[in-house]
Protein backbone atom coordinates (compact mmCIF):
# COMPACT_ATOMS: atom_id res chain seq x y z
CA UNK A 1 0.00 0.00 0.00
CA UNK A 2 2.69 2.43 1.04
CA UNK A 3 4.74 1.65 -2.04
CA UNK A 4 1.73 2.10 -4.27
CA UNK A 5 0.92 5.53 -2.92
CA UNK A 6 4.55 6.49 -3.28
CA UNK A 7 4.53 5.54 -6.93
CA UNK A 8 1.28 7.25 -7.83
CA UNK A 9 1.36 10.84 -6.69
CA UNK A 10 -2.06 11.98 -5.55
CA UNK A 11 -3.16 8.53 -4.44
CA UNK A 12 -4.87 9.06 -1.13
CA UNK A 13 -4.93 6.85 1.91
CA UNK A 14 -8.08 4.73 1.74
CA UNK A 15 -11.15 6.92 2.16
CA UNK A 16 -13.38 6.27 5.10
CA UNK A 17 -16.23 5.14 2.87
CA UNK A 18 -14.06 2.44 1.31
CA UNK A 19 -13.02 1.29 4.75
CA UNK A 20 -16.64 1.30 5.89
CA UNK A 21 -17.57 -0.81 2.89
CA UNK A 22 -14.84 -3.32 3.63
CA UNK A 23 -16.31 -3.54 7.11
CA UNK A 24 -19.50 -5.03 5.60
CA UNK A 25 -17.64 -8.28 4.98
CA UNK A 26 -15.97 -8.41 8.38
CA UNK A 27 -19.25 -7.80 10.14
CA UNK A 28 -21.05 -10.40 8.03
CA UNK A 29 -18.37 -12.86 9.09
CA UNK A 30 -18.88 -11.83 12.70
CA UNK A 31 -22.62 -12.46 12.36
CA UNK A 32 -21.93 -15.97 11.07
CA UNK A 33 -19.48 -16.76 13.88
CA UNK A 34 -21.72 -15.42 16.62
CA UNK A 35 -24.65 -17.33 15.15
CA UNK A 36 -22.76 -20.61 15.21
CA UNK A 37 -21.62 -19.98 18.76
CA UNK A 38 -25.18 -19.14 19.78
CA UNK A 39 -26.48 -22.44 18.37
CA UNK A 40 -23.91 -24.26 20.50
CA UNK A 41 -24.51 -22.56 23.81
CA UNK A 42 -27.43 -23.42 26.03
CA UNK A 43 -28.77 -25.00 29.19
CA UNK A 44 -28.92 -28.52 27.72
CA UNK A 45 -25.26 -28.66 26.81
CA UNK A 46 -26.02 -29.86 23.30
CA UNK A 47 -23.08 -28.94 21.09
CA UNK A 48 -23.25 -28.15 17.43
CA UNK A 49 -20.25 -30.38 16.82
CA UNK A 50 -22.10 -33.43 18.09
CA UNK A 51 -25.06 -32.66 15.91
CA UNK A 52 -22.92 -32.16 12.83
CA UNK A 53 -20.97 -35.33 13.54
CA UNK A 54 -24.24 -37.22 13.83
CA UNK A 55 -25.49 -35.68 10.64
CA UNK A 56 -22.32 -36.71 8.82
CA UNK A 57 -22.56 -40.27 10.12
CA UNK A 58 -26.12 -40.35 8.88
CA UNK A 59 -27.59 -40.93 12.36
CA UNK A 60 -30.95 -39.37 13.07
CA UNK A 61 -31.11 -36.73 15.76
CA UNK A 62 -32.77 -37.72 18.97
CA UNK A 63 -36.11 -36.11 19.65
CA UNK A 64 -34.66 -33.89 22.37
CA UNK A 65 -31.82 -32.80 20.15
CA UNK A 66 -34.04 -31.84 17.27
CA UNK A 67 -36.46 -29.99 19.53
CA UNK A 68 -33.65 -28.09 21.22
CA UNK A 69 -31.98 -27.22 17.97
CA UNK A 70 -34.86 -26.62 15.58
CA UNK A 71 -37.63 -25.38 17.84
CA UNK A 72 -35.71 -23.55 20.54
CA UNK A 73 -32.27 -22.41 19.51
CA UNK A 74 -32.82 -21.78 15.81
CA UNK A 75 -35.91 -19.56 16.12
CA UNK A 76 -34.26 -17.77 19.00
CA UNK A 77 -31.17 -17.14 16.90
CA UNK A 78 -33.26 -15.92 13.96
CA UNK A 79 -35.20 -13.63 16.25
CA UNK A 80 -32.01 -12.25 17.79
CA UNK A 81 -30.60 -11.50 14.35
CA UNK A 82 -33.80 -9.86 13.14
CA UNK A 83 -34.45 -7.82 16.25
CA UNK A 84 -30.83 -6.73 16.59
CA UNK A 85 -30.68 -5.64 12.97
CA UNK A 86 -34.04 -3.89 13.27
CA UNK A 87 -33.14 -1.99 16.44
CA UNK A 88 -29.72 -0.87 15.23
CA UNK A 89 -30.97 0.16 11.80
CA UNK A 90 -33.93 2.08 13.13
CA UNK A 91 -31.59 3.79 15.59
CA UNK A 92 -29.25 4.84 12.77
CA UNK A 93 -32.13 6.05 10.58
CA UNK A 94 -33.72 7.94 13.44
CA UNK A 95 -30.44 9.65 14.32
CA UNK A 96 -30.08 10.70 10.70
CA UNK A 97 -33.66 11.91 10.56
CA UNK A 98 -33.45 13.89 13.79
CA UNK A 99 -29.89 14.94 12.93
CA UNK A 100 -28.73 13.88 16.34
CA UNK A 101 -26.75 10.94 17.71
CA UNK A 102 -28.98 10.74 20.79
CA UNK A 103 -32.17 9.88 18.93
CA UNK A 104 -33.11 6.27 19.56
CA UNK A 105 -36.51 4.65 19.35
CA UNK A 106 -36.16 3.35 22.91
CA UNK A 107 -35.17 6.66 24.43
CA UNK A 108 -37.59 8.98 22.67
CA UNK A 109 -40.68 6.90 23.31
CA UNK A 110 -41.23 5.15 19.98
CA UNK A 111 -40.66 1.76 21.58
CA UNK A 112 -43.09 2.65 24.38
CA UNK A 113 -45.65 3.61 21.76
CA UNK A 114 -45.08 0.33 19.98
CA UNK A 115 -45.50 -1.59 23.23
CA UNK A 116 -48.77 0.17 23.86
CA UNK A 117 -49.94 -0.86 20.40
CA UNK A 118 -48.93 -4.45 21.03
CA UNK A 119 -50.61 -4.53 24.44
CA UNK A 120 -53.77 -3.06 22.92
CA UNK A 121 -53.75 -5.80 20.34
CA UNK A 122 -53.18 -8.54 22.94
CA UNK A 123 -55.81 -7.36 25.40
CA UNK A 124 -58.45 -5.96 23.08
CA UNK A 125 -57.74 -8.21 20.11
CA UNK A 126 -60.29 -10.65 21.49
CA UNK A 127 -63.00 -8.05 21.02
CA UNK A 128 -62.47 -7.94 17.27
CA UNK A 129 -64.98 -9.80 15.10
CA UNK A 130 -63.87 -13.40 14.65
CA UNK A 131 -63.58 -13.03 10.87
CA UNK A 132 -61.26 -10.06 11.21
CA UNK A 133 -59.23 -11.89 13.83
CA UNK A 134 -58.84 -14.89 11.57
CA UNK A 135 -57.76 -12.61 8.75
CA UNK A 136 -55.06 -10.80 10.72
CA UNK A 137 -53.95 -13.87 12.66
CA UNK A 138 -50.48 -13.64 14.14
CA UNK A 139 -49.91 -10.38 12.25
CA UNK A 140 -52.26 -8.44 14.52
CA UNK A 141 -49.76 -7.78 17.31
CA UNK A 142 -46.77 -6.73 15.17
CA UNK A 143 -49.00 -4.64 12.92
CA UNK A 144 -50.58 -2.87 15.89
CA UNK A 145 -47.10 -2.21 17.30
CA UNK A 146 -46.00 -0.87 13.93
CA UNK A 147 -48.97 1.51 13.60
CA UNK A 148 -48.56 2.76 17.15
CA UNK A 149 -44.81 3.29 16.65
CA UNK A 150 -45.55 5.16 13.46
CA UNK A 151 -48.03 7.47 15.17
CA UNK A 152 -45.55 8.07 18.00
CA UNK A 153 -42.70 8.88 15.62
CA UNK A 154 -44.81 11.35 13.66
CA UNK A 155 -46.05 12.98 16.84
CA UNK A 156 -42.53 13.20 18.20
CA UNK A 157 -41.23 14.72 14.97
CA UNK A 158 -44.02 17.30 14.91
CA UNK A 159 -43.43 18.29 18.51
CA UNK A 160 -39.67 18.60 18.36
CA UNK A 161 -39.10 20.04 14.89
CA UNK A 162 -39.73 23.66 14.02
CA UNK A 163 -38.87 25.09 10.63
CA UNK A 164 -36.63 22.17 9.78
CA UNK A 165 -34.66 22.35 13.00
CA UNK A 166 -35.00 19.64 15.61
CA UNK A 167 -34.56 20.71 19.19
CA UNK A 168 -32.73 17.95 21.01
CA UNK A 169 -34.04 19.04 24.39
CA UNK A 170 -37.63 19.01 23.16
CA UNK A 171 -37.09 15.65 21.54
CA UNK A 172 -35.76 14.04 24.71
CA UNK A 173 -38.39 15.65 26.93
CA UNK A 174 -41.18 14.71 24.54
CA UNK A 175 -39.79 11.18 24.69
CA UNK A 176 -40.17 11.18 28.47
CA UNK A 177 -43.76 12.39 28.20
CA UNK A 178 -44.66 9.87 25.50
CA UNK A 179 -43.08 7.02 27.44
CA UNK A 180 -44.99 8.00 30.58
CA UNK A 181 -48.26 8.32 28.70
CA UNK A 182 -47.86 5.00 26.92
CA UNK A 183 -46.90 3.39 30.23
CA UNK A 184 -50.00 4.76 31.94
CA UNK A 185 -52.33 3.58 29.21
CA UNK A 186 -50.63 0.20 29.23
CA UNK A 187 -51.15 0.08 33.00
CA UNK A 188 -54.87 0.62 32.57
CA UNK A 189 -55.02 -2.15 29.99
CA UNK A 190 -53.12 -4.52 32.24
CA UNK A 191 -55.95 -4.24 34.79
CA UNK A 192 -58.30 -5.48 32.09
CA UNK A 193 -56.08 -8.39 31.10
CA UNK A 194 -56.81 -11.99 32.04
CA UNK A 195 -54.18 -14.40 33.37
CA UNK A 196 -52.96 -15.65 30.02
CA UNK A 197 -52.73 -12.11 28.68
CA UNK A 198 -50.85 -11.02 31.80
CA UNK A 199 -48.27 -13.71 31.16
CA UNK A 200 -47.96 -12.43 27.61
CA UNK A 201 -47.51 -8.92 28.91
CA UNK A 202 -44.95 -9.44 31.66
CA UNK A 203 -42.10 -10.06 29.28
CA UNK A 204 -42.59 -6.72 27.50
CA UNK A 205 -41.13 -4.72 30.29
CA UNK A 206 -38.04 -6.87 30.45
CA UNK A 207 -37.39 -7.48 26.83
CA UNK A 208 -36.46 -11.03 26.01
CA UNK A 209 -35.86 -13.38 23.15
CA UNK A 210 -37.08 -16.33 25.23
CA UNK A 211 -40.52 -16.32 23.63
CA UNK A 212 -39.11 -17.04 20.19
CA UNK A 213 -41.08 -19.38 17.98
CA UNK A 214 -41.61 -19.79 14.27
CA UNK A 215 -45.13 -18.33 14.33
CA UNK A 216 -43.94 -15.03 15.78
CA UNK A 217 -41.05 -14.95 13.38
CA UNK A 218 -43.12 -15.47 10.27
CA UNK A 219 -45.35 -12.62 11.37
CA UNK A 220 -42.57 -10.15 12.12
CA UNK A 221 -39.83 -11.10 9.66
CA UNK A 222 -41.46 -9.70 6.50
CA UNK A 223 -42.13 -6.36 8.20
CA UNK A 224 -38.62 -6.09 9.62
CA UNK A 225 -36.84 -7.20 6.46
CA UNK A 226 -38.86 -4.80 4.30
CA UNK A 227 -38.14 -1.96 6.70
CA UNK A 228 -34.40 -2.68 6.74
CA UNK A 229 -34.29 -2.98 2.96
CA UNK A 230 -36.11 0.34 2.74
CA UNK A 231 -33.75 1.93 5.23
CA UNK A 232 -30.72 0.84 3.20
CA UNK A 233 -31.99 3.02 0.33
CA UNK A 234 -32.01 6.13 2.51
CA UNK A 235 -28.22 6.53 2.76
CA UNK A 236 -27.76 9.41 0.38
CA UNK A 237 -30.86 11.19 1.59
CA UNK A 238 -29.79 11.02 5.22
CA UNK A 239 -26.33 12.27 4.28
CA UNK A 240 -27.97 15.26 2.63
CA UNK A 241 -30.18 15.82 5.62
CA UNK A 242 -27.06 16.03 7.81
CA UNK A 243 -26.36 19.32 6.03
CA UNK A 244 -29.80 20.63 6.96
CA UNK A 245 -33.18 20.33 5.32
CA UNK A 246 -32.77 23.31 3.04
CA UNK A 247 -29.41 22.10 1.75
CA UNK A 248 -30.74 18.58 1.28
CA UNK A 249 -33.40 20.07 -0.96
CA UNK A 250 -30.81 22.16 -2.81
CA UNK A 251 -28.73 19.13 -3.71
CA UNK A 252 -31.73 17.38 -5.18
CA UNK A 253 -33.22 15.26 -2.42
CA UNK A 254 -37.02 15.11 -2.22
CA UNK A 255 -36.86 15.93 1.47
CA UNK A 256 -40.46 15.45 2.51
CA UNK A 257 -40.77 12.10 0.76
CA UNK A 258 -37.45 10.95 2.19
CA UNK A 259 -38.48 11.92 5.71
CA UNK A 260 -41.79 10.10 5.37
CA UNK A 261 -39.96 6.99 4.18
CA UNK A 262 -37.51 7.24 7.08
CA UNK A 263 -40.30 7.57 9.64
CA UNK A 264 -42.08 4.59 8.10
CA UNK A 265 -38.90 2.47 8.24
CA UNK A 266 -38.17 3.39 11.85
CA UNK A 267 -41.73 2.65 12.91
CA UNK A 268 -41.94 -0.65 11.03
CA UNK A 269 -38.58 -1.97 12.19
CA UNK A 270 -38.80 -0.91 15.81
CA UNK A 271 -42.54 -1.64 16.06
CA UNK A 272 -42.19 -5.18 14.77
CA UNK A 273 -39.11 -5.75 16.91
CA UNK A 274 -40.98 -4.59 20.01
CA UNK A 275 -43.92 -6.80 19.14
CA UNK A 276 -41.86 -9.96 19.25
CA UNK A 277 -39.20 -9.16 21.81
CA UNK A 278 -40.41 -6.38 24.10
CA UNK A 279 -38.35 -3.42 25.15
CA UNK A 280 -34.70 -4.10 24.37
CA UNK A 281 -32.93 -0.80 24.80
CA UNK A 282 -29.75 0.94 23.73
CA UNK A 283 -28.85 -1.29 20.77
CA UNK A 284 -30.03 1.50 18.46
CA UNK A 285 -27.76 4.03 20.10
CA UNK A 286 -24.62 2.03 20.82
CA UNK A 287 -24.22 0.30 17.47
CA UNK A 288 -24.41 3.33 15.13
CA UNK A 289 -22.29 5.34 17.52
CA UNK A 290 -19.47 2.79 17.58
CA UNK A 291 -19.60 2.50 13.81
CA UNK A 292 -19.45 6.27 13.36
CA UNK A 293 -16.36 6.35 15.54
CA UNK A 294 -14.77 3.56 13.53
CA UNK A 295 -15.59 4.45 9.94
CA UNK A 296 -17.31 7.81 9.90
CA UNK A 297 -20.91 8.93 9.61
CA UNK A 298 -21.54 8.24 5.90
CA UNK A 299 -25.00 6.65 5.93
CA UNK A 300 -24.44 4.81 2.67
CA UNK A 301 -22.27 2.33 4.59
CA UNK A 302 -23.42 3.04 8.13
CA UNK A 303 -26.93 1.62 7.69
CA UNK A 304 -25.88 -1.82 6.47
CA UNK A 305 -23.04 -1.97 9.00
CA UNK A 306 -25.50 -1.07 11.75
CA UNK A 307 -27.84 -3.87 10.71
CA UNK A 308 -24.99 -6.39 10.75
CA UNK A 309 -23.36 -5.26 13.99
CA UNK A 310 -26.77 -4.93 15.66
CA UNK A 311 -27.61 -8.51 14.73
CA UNK A 312 -24.26 -9.80 16.01
CA UNK A 313 -24.44 -7.72 19.18
CA UNK A 314 -27.92 -8.86 20.15
CA UNK A 315 -27.20 -12.52 19.53
CA UNK A 316 -24.02 -12.11 21.58
CA UNK A 317 -25.91 -10.37 24.38
CA UNK A 318 -28.49 -13.15 24.30
CA UNK A 319 -25.73 -15.71 24.80
CA UNK A 320 -24.54 -13.78 27.84
CA UNK A 321 -28.10 -13.58 29.12
CA UNK A 322 -28.51 -17.34 28.73
CA UNK A 323 -25.31 -18.54 30.32
CA UNK A 324 -24.50 -16.01 33.00
CA UNK A 325 -26.91 -17.44 35.59
CA UNK A 326 -27.65 -20.92 34.14
CA UNK A 327 -30.01 -22.67 34.41
CA UNK A 328 -32.10 -19.49 34.81
CA UNK A 329 -31.69 -16.72 32.31
CA UNK A 330 -31.42 -12.97 32.51
CA UNK A 331 -33.82 -10.82 30.46
CA UNK A 332 -31.70 -9.57 27.56
CA UNK A 333 -32.95 -6.02 28.10
CA UNK A 334 -30.89 -5.97 31.28
CA UNK A 335 -27.75 -6.99 29.41
CA UNK A 336 -28.17 -4.38 26.68
CA UNK A 337 -28.96 -1.70 29.24
CA UNK A 338 -25.84 -2.49 31.24
CA UNK A 339 -23.78 -2.31 28.06
CA UNK A 340 -25.62 0.64 26.55
CA UNK A 341 -26.50 3.11 29.27
CA UNK A 342 -22.85 4.04 29.97
CA UNK A 343 -22.32 4.66 26.25
CA UNK A 344 -25.35 6.94 26.20
CA UNK A 345 -23.99 8.90 29.17
CA UNK A 346 -20.62 9.11 27.46
CA UNK A 347 -22.19 10.61 24.33
CA UNK A 348 -24.10 13.07 26.50
CA UNK A 349 -20.89 14.15 28.21
CA UNK A 350 -19.06 14.65 24.95
CA UNK A 351 -21.95 16.54 23.38
CA UNK A 352 -23.08 18.65 26.28
CA UNK A 353 -23.35 21.67 24.04
CA UNK A 354 -25.78 19.87 21.76
CA UNK A 355 -28.51 19.53 24.35
CA UNK A 356 -29.53 23.16 24.26
CA UNK A 357 -31.76 23.35 27.30
Amino acid sequence: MVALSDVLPGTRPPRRLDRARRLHLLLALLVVLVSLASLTVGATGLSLGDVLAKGLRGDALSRTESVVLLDIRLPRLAMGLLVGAALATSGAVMQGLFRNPLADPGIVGVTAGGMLGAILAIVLGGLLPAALRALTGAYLVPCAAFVASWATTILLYRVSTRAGRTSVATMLLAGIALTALAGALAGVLIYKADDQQLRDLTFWNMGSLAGANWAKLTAAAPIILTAIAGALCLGRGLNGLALGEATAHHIGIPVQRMKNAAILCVAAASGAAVAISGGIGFVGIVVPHLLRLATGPDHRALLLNSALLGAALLVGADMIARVIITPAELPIGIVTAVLGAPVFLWILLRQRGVVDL
Partner: protein
Amino acid sequence: MLDVQNLRVSLGGKTILDGLTLTARPGQITCIVGPNGSGKTTCLRAITGDLPFAGRIALGGQDIARLSPRELAALRGVLPQASTLAFPFTVAEVVQIGLHRGTSGAQSERIRAALGRVDLGAYADRSYQELSGGEQQRVQLARVLAQVWEPVADGVPRWLFLDEPVSSLDIAHQLQVMRIARDFASAGGGVVAVMHDLNLTAICADKVILLAAGACHAQGTPGDVMTSDILSRAYGCALHVGQIPPPGTPFVLPHLAALAAE
Protein backbone atom coordinates in the same frame (compact mmCIF):
# COMPACT_ATOMS: atom_id res chain seq x y z
CA MET B 1 -32.36 34.05 -17.55
CA LEU B 2 -33.94 34.25 -14.14
CA ASP B 3 -37.37 35.79 -14.43
CA VAL B 4 -39.35 36.56 -11.29
CA GLN B 5 -42.82 37.95 -11.84
CA ASN B 6 -45.10 39.37 -9.19
CA LEU B 7 -43.57 37.29 -6.37
CA ARG B 8 -45.57 37.26 -3.18
CA VAL B 9 -44.47 35.41 -0.04
CA SER B 10 -46.20 35.36 3.33
CA LEU B 11 -44.66 33.76 6.38
CA GLY B 12 -46.75 33.18 9.47
CA GLY B 13 -49.52 35.46 8.19
CA LYS B 14 -47.12 38.32 7.57
CA THR B 15 -46.50 39.47 4.02
CA ILE B 16 -42.76 39.53 3.44
CA LEU B 17 -42.64 40.05 -0.31
CA ASP B 18 -45.44 41.86 -2.06
CA GLY B 19 -45.43 41.72 -5.82
CA LEU B 20 -41.69 41.60 -6.45
CA THR B 21 -40.60 41.52 -10.07
CA LEU B 22 -36.97 41.14 -11.09
CA THR B 23 -34.72 39.56 -13.67
CA ALA B 24 -31.13 38.36 -13.74
CA ARG B 25 -29.04 37.29 -16.71
CA PRO B 26 -26.54 34.48 -17.03
CA GLY B 27 -23.04 35.79 -17.56
CA GLN B 28 -23.61 38.43 -14.91
CA ILE B 29 -23.37 38.84 -11.16
CA THR B 30 -26.65 40.13 -9.82
CA CYS B 31 -26.57 41.40 -6.25
CA ILE B 32 -29.63 41.78 -4.07
CA VAL B 33 -29.18 44.44 -1.39
CA GLY B 34 -31.47 46.19 1.03
CA PRO B 35 -31.97 46.98 4.69
CA ASN B 36 -32.60 44.30 7.32
CA GLY B 37 -36.05 42.80 6.97
CA SER B 38 -36.50 44.03 3.41
CA GLY B 39 -36.98 40.46 2.19
CA LYS B 40 -33.58 39.71 0.59
CA THR B 41 -33.15 36.24 2.03
CA THR B 42 -36.85 35.44 1.65
CA CYS B 43 -36.60 36.39 -2.00
CA LEU B 44 -33.60 34.10 -2.49
CA ARG B 45 -35.29 31.26 -0.63
CA ALA B 46 -38.36 31.54 -2.83
CA ILE B 47 -36.19 31.49 -5.94
CA THR B 48 -34.34 28.40 -4.75
CA GLY B 49 -37.63 26.63 -4.12
CA ASP B 50 -37.46 26.57 -0.31
CA LEU B 51 -40.63 28.52 0.35
CA PRO B 52 -44.16 28.41 -0.94
CA PHE B 53 -44.87 31.49 -3.03
CA ALA B 54 -47.42 33.09 -5.29
CA GLY B 55 -46.37 34.49 -8.63
CA ARG B 56 -44.05 32.99 -11.21
CA ILE B 57 -40.35 32.16 -11.03
CA ALA B 58 -38.71 30.86 -14.18
CA LEU B 59 -35.13 29.71 -14.52
CA GLY B 60 -33.95 29.40 -18.11
CA GLY B 61 -37.59 29.52 -19.23
CA GLN B 62 -38.65 26.67 -16.95
CA ASP B 63 -41.18 27.28 -14.20
CA ILE B 64 -39.35 26.19 -11.04
CA ALA B 65 -42.59 25.10 -9.40
CA ARG B 66 -42.77 22.31 -11.98
CA LEU B 67 -39.20 21.03 -11.55
CA SER B 68 -38.33 18.16 -9.21
CA PRO B 69 -35.65 18.71 -6.54
CA ARG B 70 -33.33 16.63 -8.68
CA GLU B 71 -33.88 18.67 -11.83
CA LEU B 72 -33.44 21.86 -9.83
CA ALA B 73 -30.21 20.54 -8.32
CA ALA B 74 -28.81 19.95 -11.79
CA LEU B 75 -29.65 23.55 -12.69
CA ARG B 76 -28.50 25.52 -9.68
CA GLY B 77 -26.43 25.37 -6.53
CA VAL B 78 -27.31 27.25 -3.35
CA LEU B 79 -24.95 28.55 -0.68
CA PRO B 80 -26.94 29.07 2.51
CA GLN B 81 -26.19 31.80 5.01
CA ALA B 82 -25.30 29.42 7.80
CA SER B 83 -24.96 25.67 7.87
CA THR B 84 -24.82 23.26 10.73
CA LEU B 85 -23.60 19.74 10.26
CA ALA B 86 -25.18 16.98 12.29
CA PHE B 87 -22.39 14.41 12.20
CA PRO B 88 -18.58 14.51 12.09
CA PHE B 89 -18.09 14.35 8.32
CA THR B 90 -14.73 15.28 6.85
CA VAL B 91 -14.37 18.25 4.54
CA ALA B 92 -14.10 16.05 1.46
CA GLU B 93 -17.20 14.09 2.51
CA VAL B 94 -19.22 17.29 2.87
CA VAL B 95 -18.29 18.30 -0.66
CA GLN B 96 -19.06 14.80 -1.89
CA ILE B 97 -22.58 14.82 -0.40
CA GLY B 98 -23.54 17.56 -2.83
CA LEU B 99 -22.58 15.60 -5.93
CA HIS B 100 -25.03 13.79 -8.12
CA ARG B 101 -25.12 10.06 -8.23
CA GLY B 102 -23.84 9.90 -11.80
CA THR B 103 -20.51 11.60 -11.31
CA SER B 104 -18.82 8.85 -9.29
CA GLY B 105 -15.87 8.29 -11.65
CA ALA B 106 -14.67 11.87 -11.63
CA GLN B 107 -15.82 12.52 -8.07
CA SER B 108 -12.56 12.62 -6.14
CA GLU B 109 -10.95 14.69 -8.88
CA ARG B 110 -13.74 17.23 -8.77
CA ILE B 111 -13.81 17.35 -4.97
CA ARG B 112 -10.10 18.11 -4.93
CA ALA B 113 -10.46 20.77 -7.59
CA ALA B 114 -13.39 22.42 -5.79
CA LEU B 115 -11.52 22.50 -2.50
CA GLY B 116 -8.46 23.89 -4.27
CA ARG B 117 -10.66 26.61 -5.67
CA VAL B 118 -11.47 27.91 -2.17
CA ASP B 119 -7.90 27.48 -0.86
CA LEU B 120 -8.77 24.44 1.24
CA GLY B 121 -7.02 21.77 -0.81
CA ALA B 122 -5.02 20.62 2.21
CA TYR B 123 -8.13 20.32 4.39
CA ALA B 124 -9.81 17.40 2.60
CA ASP B 125 -9.43 14.94 5.47
CA ARG B 126 -9.98 17.39 8.32
CA SER B 127 -13.18 17.18 10.31
CA TYR B 128 -15.63 19.83 9.14
CA GLN B 129 -16.87 20.56 12.64
CA GLU B 130 -13.38 21.54 13.80
CA LEU B 131 -12.98 24.31 11.22
CA SER B 132 -13.59 27.99 11.89
CA GLY B 133 -16.81 29.62 10.70
CA GLY B 134 -15.12 31.21 7.72
CA GLU B 135 -13.47 27.96 6.68
CA GLN B 136 -16.78 26.13 6.98
CA GLN B 137 -18.39 28.70 4.73
CA ARG B 138 -15.68 28.13 2.14
CA VAL B 139 -16.18 24.37 2.35
CA GLN B 140 -19.87 24.94 1.67
CA LEU B 141 -18.94 27.09 -1.31
CA ALA B 142 -16.72 24.26 -2.58
CA ARG B 143 -19.67 21.90 -2.18
CA VAL B 144 -21.90 24.20 -4.22
CA LEU B 145 -19.23 24.66 -6.90
CA ALA B 146 -18.74 20.90 -7.16
CA GLN B 147 -22.50 20.49 -7.63
CA VAL B 148 -22.66 22.86 -10.61
CA TRP B 149 -19.06 22.47 -11.72
CA GLU B 150 -19.58 23.43 -15.36
CA PRO B 151 -21.17 26.90 -15.56
CA VAL B 152 -22.84 25.85 -18.80
CA ALA B 153 -24.03 22.27 -19.25
CA ASP B 154 -25.39 21.14 -22.62
CA GLY B 155 -25.79 24.75 -23.67
CA VAL B 156 -27.92 25.55 -20.62
CA PRO B 157 -26.45 28.06 -18.17
CA ARG B 158 -26.38 26.98 -14.54
CA TRP B 159 -26.85 29.22 -11.57
CA LEU B 160 -25.20 29.98 -8.28
CA PHE B 161 -27.42 31.44 -5.56
CA LEU B 162 -25.35 32.83 -2.72
CA ASP B 163 -26.89 34.06 0.52
CA GLU B 164 -24.43 36.52 2.05
CA PRO B 165 -21.46 34.54 0.78
CA VAL B 166 -18.86 36.71 2.48
CA SER B 167 -20.54 37.30 5.83
CA SER B 168 -17.92 35.56 7.98
CA LEU B 169 -14.87 35.88 5.74
CA ASP B 170 -11.80 38.05 6.07
CA ILE B 171 -11.19 40.65 3.40
CA ALA B 172 -8.86 38.48 1.32
CA HIS B 173 -11.33 35.63 1.19
CA GLN B 174 -14.21 38.01 0.51
CA LEU B 175 -12.41 39.06 -2.64
CA GLN B 176 -11.53 35.47 -3.45
CA VAL B 177 -15.17 34.38 -3.21
CA MET B 178 -16.31 37.25 -5.41
CA ARG B 179 -13.55 36.33 -7.86
CA ILE B 180 -14.93 32.78 -7.99
CA ALA B 181 -18.39 34.19 -8.63
CA ARG B 182 -16.98 36.39 -11.36
CA ASP B 183 -15.24 33.46 -13.04
CA PHE B 184 -18.47 31.45 -12.93
CA ALA B 185 -20.36 34.31 -14.57
CA SER B 186 -17.64 34.94 -17.15
CA ALA B 187 -17.84 31.29 -18.17
CA GLY B 188 -21.52 31.74 -18.94
CA GLY B 189 -23.20 30.82 -15.63
CA GLY B 190 -25.53 33.05 -13.67
CA VAL B 191 -24.79 34.35 -10.18
CA VAL B 192 -27.33 35.85 -7.81
CA ALA B 193 -25.99 36.96 -4.43
CA VAL B 194 -27.62 38.52 -1.42
CA MET B 195 -25.11 41.07 -0.18
CA HIS B 196 -24.72 43.20 2.89
CA ASP B 197 -21.59 45.10 1.99
CA LEU B 198 -22.51 47.90 -0.40
CA ASN B 199 -18.92 48.66 -1.33
CA LEU B 200 -18.19 45.06 -2.27
CA THR B 201 -21.44 45.08 -4.21
CA ALA B 202 -20.37 48.18 -6.09
CA ILE B 203 -17.10 46.51 -7.07
CA CYS B 204 -18.55 43.15 -8.10
CA ALA B 205 -22.09 43.54 -9.32
CA ASP B 206 -23.15 43.83 -12.92
CA LYS B 207 -26.66 44.48 -11.74
CA VAL B 208 -27.97 45.62 -8.37
CA ILE B 209 -31.47 44.94 -7.10
CA LEU B 210 -32.34 47.13 -4.16
CA LEU B 211 -35.19 45.84 -2.01
CA ALA B 212 -37.08 47.85 0.56
CA ALA B 213 -40.17 46.78 2.48
CA GLY B 214 -40.75 43.66 0.41
CA ALA B 215 -40.69 45.33 -2.96
CA CYS B 216 -38.11 46.31 -5.53
CA HIS B 217 -36.97 49.82 -4.74
CA ALA B 218 -34.62 50.13 -7.70
CA GLN B 219 -32.73 47.87 -10.10
CA GLY B 220 -30.00 48.50 -12.62
CA THR B 221 -26.25 48.92 -12.82
CA PRO B 222 -24.42 49.85 -9.60
CA GLY B 223 -23.98 53.34 -11.03
CA ASP B 224 -27.74 53.72 -11.57
CA VAL B 225 -28.94 52.27 -8.30
CA MET B 226 -26.30 53.29 -5.84
CA THR B 227 -26.89 57.01 -5.66
CA SER B 228 -27.02 58.99 -2.44
CA ASP B 229 -30.67 59.74 -2.94
CA ILE B 230 -31.91 56.20 -3.68
CA LEU B 231 -29.82 54.52 -0.98
CA SER B 232 -30.69 57.09 1.68
CA ARG B 233 -34.37 56.56 1.07
CA ALA B 234 -34.14 52.76 0.95
CA TYR B 235 -32.07 52.45 4.14
CA GLY B 236 -33.78 55.32 5.95
CA CYS B 237 -30.56 57.07 6.88
CA ALA B 238 -28.35 59.65 5.32
CA LEU B 239 -25.85 58.02 2.99
CA HIS B 240 -23.44 59.82 0.76
CA VAL B 241 -22.14 58.05 -2.31
CA GLY B 242 -18.76 59.36 -3.37
CA GLN B 243 -16.40 58.56 -6.18
CA ILE B 244 -12.80 57.56 -5.72
CA PRO B 245 -10.34 56.11 -8.20
CA PRO B 246 -10.65 53.94 -10.17
CA PRO B 247 -13.18 56.25 -11.72
CA GLY B 248 -16.68 54.95 -12.32
CA THR B 249 -16.77 52.70 -9.22
CA PRO B 250 -19.15 54.09 -6.59
CA PHE B 251 -18.28 53.74 -2.94
CA VAL B 252 -20.47 54.19 0.10
CA LEU B 253 -19.71 56.03 3.29
CA PRO B 254 -22.23 56.38 6.11
CA HIS B 255 -22.94 60.06 6.40
CA LEU B 256 -22.23 60.94 10.01
CA ALA B 257 -21.93 64.70 9.67
CA ALA B 258 -25.11 65.25 11.66
CA LEU B 259 -23.73 63.29 14.62
CA ALA B 260 -20.25 64.76 14.48
CA ALA B 261 -21.44 68.36 14.27
CA GLU B 262 -22.89 68.45 17.80
